[in-house]
Structure formats: structure tokens, C-alpha cells
């Protein structure tokens, strides 16, 4: 770290070579940061592999996979048709043994866990044991990709409404500090103690059970509507309850937190000064309150986007929403380790990339933060 600081200072002193050193400094910083994050992600994934491998489940998967593949390839190969069934069986056993040797299944688990790690890191997610994608594939990649749209739809819509709704409402409330709605939000913020599925139960009870206006769960009616417009409308109808439960469960706390945050910033001296100058309140909001709080807003937004990837396991399960969260839960119930590890890997990667990018976004939106400088180190 010391060398970087020195480079940073010397960059400021020698104005002529400023561009060079800035790029050098940024590159060096990016490299160090990337390396730390990569190590973090690798350790995180390795831990997940260790946990997900309880009772040798991963080994069983691998062995089964080899058995399936070898048996199928030999049975399907016309060259071996002529062999007797005993000879063919022996051939299969030999091939399985050599394949297991090749993959290191005869070696102790510690050695093998590193093979899994490398496979995982190279996004070679492998095949599921018990789970199928709807098109019948066993590829973990395809299973996850197939469930992704449902999760992105649910998490995306509810998170976006939640995020922008609460930020803008909070901005409004921070201006009307002490008003009735302000006090109401403060009073209602403890309701966020309950998770989304909890509100989901009540919403199902009211709108599906008693009023019969919205469906109990699922993505579309069965059979689905034939026109694509009808289909979209139907999905939307199914989306209302799960999305509402996600929004309700954290809305008031989110508004409260943002409001407090904005209030702290709007009592700064420079905001008072702007008010005294008689600037219109919209300008004060945009240039004096939102601008300095932008890094925090962006961080929260980015973390929200990552959060979408894991989805809402229990909410999706309660609403039978065919998304990633429910898939993860099903995968664990079916002991389908490749799917569990697969979704963890993607989550870890996304998180790592976002954290890495955030550092640079901070430097872009906040001139006080300097990449690789002292501020960024804190």
C-alpha cells in the first residue's frame, strides 16, 4: 500500500507525467483489488464445496455420471455391438475404472476438492443428479438459465419498485419532516421485522382464499393462454401477490432508513447555505442532497441487483414461483450438489465483480474518492 501512496503523491507533484502515473496507479490498484477479490471468491466457493460435499455426495454424483456416460457411449457404439454382454460389461467396468482414475476419484477427497474448485471457477458447472430443466436437460447451466427469467422478473420488478419508490418517497418525507406521513412511516417501520413470505401468507389468504381475485401461486394458469399478450397479462396477474409481499416486507424500513439518511445530509451547512441563497428546492435536492449521497445510493442499488440472483428462496417456495430461489431449495432437498454449488459460484462471481466495479464507480461519482489513493483504502 505504501508504494501506491507514494506513486499517487509523486503523480500529483510531477504534473507532466500525470496521465502516465494515474493510469499506472489505477492499473496497480485494480490489479491488487482484483487479486484480493479473486482470492476471496475462491475461498468462498471452496468453503461452499466443502459444505455441499457432506457425506460424499459430490463423489456419488461424479461416479454416477461416469457410469452413465460410459455405459451409454459403449452401448451406443456400433463397433461394440458384436461383443457378448459379459465382454461388454467388462469393457464398461474397465472404462469406468480408468475414467475414475483420470478424474482422480481414487484419490482422497482433499485432492479432489481442488478439481471441483477448478471446474467451478471455470464455470464448468457439470450435470445435475436428479434435477431436470423443463426441456429435459441435465446441464446445470441450462437448469439455472431456464429458471433465471422468472427470478429476474419477480426480484427485478419488486426490487426496482421498492428501491425507487422508497428513495423518492424518503426524499419527499425528508422535506416534510415531522408531518403526519413522516410519523406514520416511522411508526410502521417495525413491520419490516417480518420476511416477505410472512406477508405472502396474508396476501394469499385475503386475495386468493377469501376474495378469489388473484391466483394462489405459480407463474401462469394451466393451461396457459395461447396469445402472447394474454400470456403476459396472466404472468402479471400471478406476479402481483409475490411482488407485493416482497415490497411490503421491507418498504417502510427502507423509506425510514433513506429518510434518516437524507435528513442527516440536508442538515449540512452547505445545504443550509443553498437554502439561504434561495435556490429552488428541486435544485437543492438534486445538486446538494442527492449528489453527495450518490455513492451510498449506488452501493445499495448494486447490492440489490446482486441480491436478485439468489432470489427469494422462501417467498418463491410459498408462491410456487419457478425461480432460482425455489430451484436452490429443491436442489438441496434432492441432494443435487452440482446445482447448489453452481448457483453459489455464480452468486460469488457476481458479487466479486460488483464490489470491484463499485470502487471505480465511487471514484467517478465522488471526486473526493481517489482510486488507489488514501480514501479508497479506508
Amino acid at each position, binding site marked *: 500500500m505504501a508504494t501506491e501512496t507514494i506513486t499517487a503523491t509523486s503523480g500529483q507533484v510531477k504534473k507532466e507525467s500525470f496521465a502516465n502515473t494515474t493510469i499506472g496507479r489505477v492499473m496497480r490498484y485494480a490489479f491488487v483489488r482484483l487479486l484480493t477479490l479473486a482470492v476471496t471468491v475462491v475461498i468462498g466457493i471452496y468453503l461452499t464445496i466443502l459444505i455441499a460435499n457432506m457425506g460424499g455426495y459430490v463423489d456419488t454424483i461424479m461416479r454416477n455420471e461416469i457410469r452413465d456416460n460410459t455405459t451409454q457411449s459403449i452401448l451406443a457404439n456400433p463397433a461394440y455391438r458384436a461383443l457378448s454382454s459379459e465382454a461388454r460389461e467388462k469393457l464398461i467396468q474397465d472404462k469406468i475404472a480408468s475414467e475414475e482414475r483420470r478424474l482422480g476419484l481414487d484419490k482422497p477427497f482433499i485432492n479432489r476438492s481442488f478439481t471441483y474448485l477448478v471446474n467451478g471457477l471455470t464455470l464448468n458447472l457439470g450435470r445435475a443428479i436428479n434435477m431436470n430443466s423443463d426441456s429435459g436437460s441435465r446441464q446445470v447451466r441450462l437448469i439455472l438459465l431456464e429458471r433465471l427469467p422468472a427470478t429476474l422478473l419477480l426480484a427485478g420488478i419488486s426490487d426496482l419498485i421498492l428501491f425507487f419508490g422508497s428513495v423518492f418517497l424518503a426524499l419527499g418525507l425528508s422535506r416534510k419532516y415531522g408531518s403526519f406521513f413522516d410519523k406514520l412511516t416511522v411508526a410502521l417501520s417495525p413491520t419490516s421485522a*417480518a420476511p416477505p413470505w410472512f406477508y405472502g401468507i396474508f396476501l394469499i389468504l385475503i386475495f386468493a382464499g377469501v376474495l378469489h381475485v388473484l391466483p394462489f401461486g405459480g407463474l401462469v394458469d394451466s393451461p396457459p393462454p395461447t396469445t402472447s399478450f394474454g400470456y403476459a397479462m396472466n404472468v402479471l396477474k400471478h406476479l402481483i401477490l409475490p411482488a407485493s409481499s416482497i415490497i411490503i416486507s421491507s418498504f417502510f424500513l427502507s423509506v425510514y432508513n433513506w429518510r434518516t439518511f437524507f435528513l442527516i445530509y440536508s442538515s449540512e451547512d452547505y445545504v443550509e447555505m443553498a437554502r439561504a441563497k434561495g435556490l429552488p428546492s428541486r435544485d437543492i435536492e438534486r445538486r446538494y442532497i442527492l449528489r453527495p449521497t450518490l455513492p451510498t445510493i449506488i452501493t445499495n442499488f448494486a447490492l440489490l441487483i446482486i441480491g436478485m440472483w439468489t432470489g427469494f428462496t422462501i417467498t418463491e417456495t410459498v408462491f410456487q414461483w419457478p425461480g432460482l430461489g425455489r430451484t436452490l431449495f429443491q436442489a438441496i432437498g434432492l441432494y443435487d450438489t452440482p446445482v447448489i454449488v453452481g448457483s453459489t459460484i455464480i452468486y460469488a462471481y457476481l458479487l466479486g465483480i460488483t464490489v470491484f466495479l463499485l470502487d471505480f464507480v465511487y471514484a467517478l461519482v465522488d471526486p473526493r474518492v481517489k482510486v488507489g489513493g488514501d480514501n479508497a483504502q479506508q
Partner: protein
Amino acid sequence: MNTLSKSMRELVRYPSAVIGLVTILFLLAVSAYALITIPYDEATRLWRGGEDVWYQNPKYAAPAWSNYFSDVKQPVSFAVSTKDGSMNKTVEVGAQDTATITVTHSFDYVYDEPPQELILYLDGTFQEKLPFVSVAWITPSGERIRVGDFAVDREMTFRVSQDQKLMKRLKTEDILTALFVEPKSESTEIVKGTYQLEIVAVTFEPNSDIDAEFVLHGTLYGLAGTDHYRRDLMLPLLWGTPIALTFGLLAALGTSLLTMIIAAIGSWYGGWIDELIQRITEINLVLPFLAILIMVGTFYSRSIWVILGVTILLSIFTGAIKSYRAVFMQSKVSPYIEAARAYGTTDRRIIFTYLIPRMIPLLIPALVSSVPSYVFLEASLAVLGLGDPVLPTWGKIIENAFAEGALYRGLYYWVLEPAALLMLTGLGFAMLGFALDRIFNPRLRDI
């Protein structure tokens, strides 16, 4: 102590704190009641018991108080027995070792629907000669209906609605309605009033005796209703309270204390220890919390203690450690620490008696506010089917209700009762924590 009483005095100024405190005290009282009246072994035995324990209860019965909200009054279940004296039993000794035992039970039936089932459990005591009973049903108008005459073996069950002879005698397949309407009429309206069941037994041996138990399965039961295994929901509702509170409080306490201690050690020693703690925190950020808990529940153990341990372990190294560290870094350079260092205090003494106590104002609100999330976490895991297999908990009730399609079938009480208690717990702690936060962090007080 002075600060504590001052804080308490300040606390009662916040209505949310008072409501929260009252709620928490109520829950503590419920826990104490549950633990005292139903010991642990008894609770798990009842919760895991099958038909042999719960045969007296109807399935899917709503709580009895739901009659207050409905115009059509549903029958409430009850069970009486000669063994506990809730049925009258008189013995009249006759000639030649015979005796006549009369068992009667009168009850008011004030409901608009017939019951689901009437069951007689008869248990004869004899050497060779079986006692013989005649069962009669006496309607409010005094009409006497012969229900059956038969010899009583050891432990026999007589289901009134299934008796073929009675069907013939009453000329209907629907015996239960026939017993409760005006006899020998076409009317289907239930006659309200006092009904009587009369069992007259004749025994033929010196020490021969019979015991009877009469069970009426209505569609309502008790204060909490029953589930698909006929279990009284009162048991998991009562016992879920201490479990939820224990899990929530222990997880919150363990997490915040350990987080604080580790943050204090890291910021005091600095160097590689601090660096290590920071890195572990970053790695923990990558690990999917819920997925790991689900994996532990599925692969290793569903015991509530294992889940509690893993929860604490995964919750130590989170964002909180960074904010505590920031505060410790400030107090590390404050003059009183310098002074302590100057007269040669040990590191451990500085950390545990000088650094950490300063943080208690920050710790308490965070601790109280985090209780609901752990209570709900335990319930969430139970809803996913990963609850402790032995313990009756709120989450288990919701899981069962969902598996049995309670919302779909309109059995709302089954979901609403545990949900109400969860909400009460969550709100109680959240409201108290909220007020504490304002008291201990004066910066928030004006906002």
C-alpha cells in the same frame, strides 16, 4: 445502575417502547406457563403422538371461539370418561354375581349442525363372561332411541354413525343427523337442548366391570383448533413461544457479543489479526447464508442447537463488525486508554473492561432489533421443512398447514394463529429496539 434507571425512565416516554416491553413480558409469561404446565418430555411425546394420543379430537377443527363470528353455530367437540369421573357411573349389585352398571352423560347441544362423529369406547373387565350393554339416546323432548345392544369385549370401539343395525332402525344412512332432529319427522333442523346418553351394562362375574368413554367429534375444538393429526394446536402455540424466544435471544446475544469481542480484538491488536478478520468478513459476504443453513439442515442435522450454532457462526462476520471496528478505532486513541496503557494494564483488561463496555449503548439496540430476524429465520427454516424434528414450533404449524393446503381449503385459523404470535414477537422486539436506538444514539433523537 444510575444510568440504567435513567434509561428506563426515558424508555417509558416512548409509547413504542412501552408496547414492545408489554408484548415481550406477555410472551415471557406465556413461555413460563408452557414450560411449567407441559414439561419438555410430555410436550415432545404429545407432539409426536399419533391416533393413540389424540383420538379424542376431530381433524381440521377450527377453534371454538369461531362460533362468535358465525351465524351458523358449529358443534364443539368434547370427550368424557368414567375413568376421570366426568361420566356418572352407578353400580347396583344383583343376585347370582350379577351387577347392573349404569353410565350416563347429559350435555347441552346448542349448535346448528350435527357432529362429525359420536364414538363410544367401552372397556370390559371380566374372566370369561362378557358384560352386556344397552345403549340408549334420550332427546331433549324425552324420546328414547335405542342405539345398540351388544356384549362388551376388552377395549372395543363403537362408532355410532357406522352401525348398520341402527341405520335400519332409524331408516336412514345419516344417523348423526337423525339423532339430533325431531324423531320420526321429516324435519332436518337440529333440536337444541339437553341430550342424554345412557349405557346400562349387566355383568355376570364377581369382579366384572366396564369403563366407558364418550367422544363427540364436532367441527370445532378448544381454544386453538386441531391439525391433520388431530393434535391440539394449543400445544405448539404455547411451546413455540419459549423456543422462538430462546432461539431469537440466544442468536442475537451470541452474534452481537461475539461480533463485538472480535471487532475489539482486531482493532486493538491491528496488524495481521485485523487483516484476517477483514478478509474473513469479505469471504463470508460471498457465502450464501440461507443456502448454507438449508444445506446444514438437510445434510447434517436439524437439531435447533446445531442450526443456532451455524446461524451465529455465519452472522458474526458481517457488516456490523466493520462499523464496530470503526468505533473501536476511535476509542483506541482516547486519553483514558492511553492512561491505562501508561500504567501497564494488560491487553485483555483493556479490551474487556475498557473498550467493550463503552460500546454497550450501541450493542443493546442492535441486539434487541435483531431478535425478530432470528425468530423469523427459525420459522422460515421450519416452513421449508427444516425445523427441529422433535420440537413443536410455530414454523412447524405453518409448514403443516401449507402442506395440507390450509389456505386453499379455508382452514385459516391454522395459519393465522402461529402467524399472529410471530408477528407479535417480531413487532414487540422491533418496537423496543427502535426506541432503544433513539435513546442510546442521541444523534437520531431529533430526527
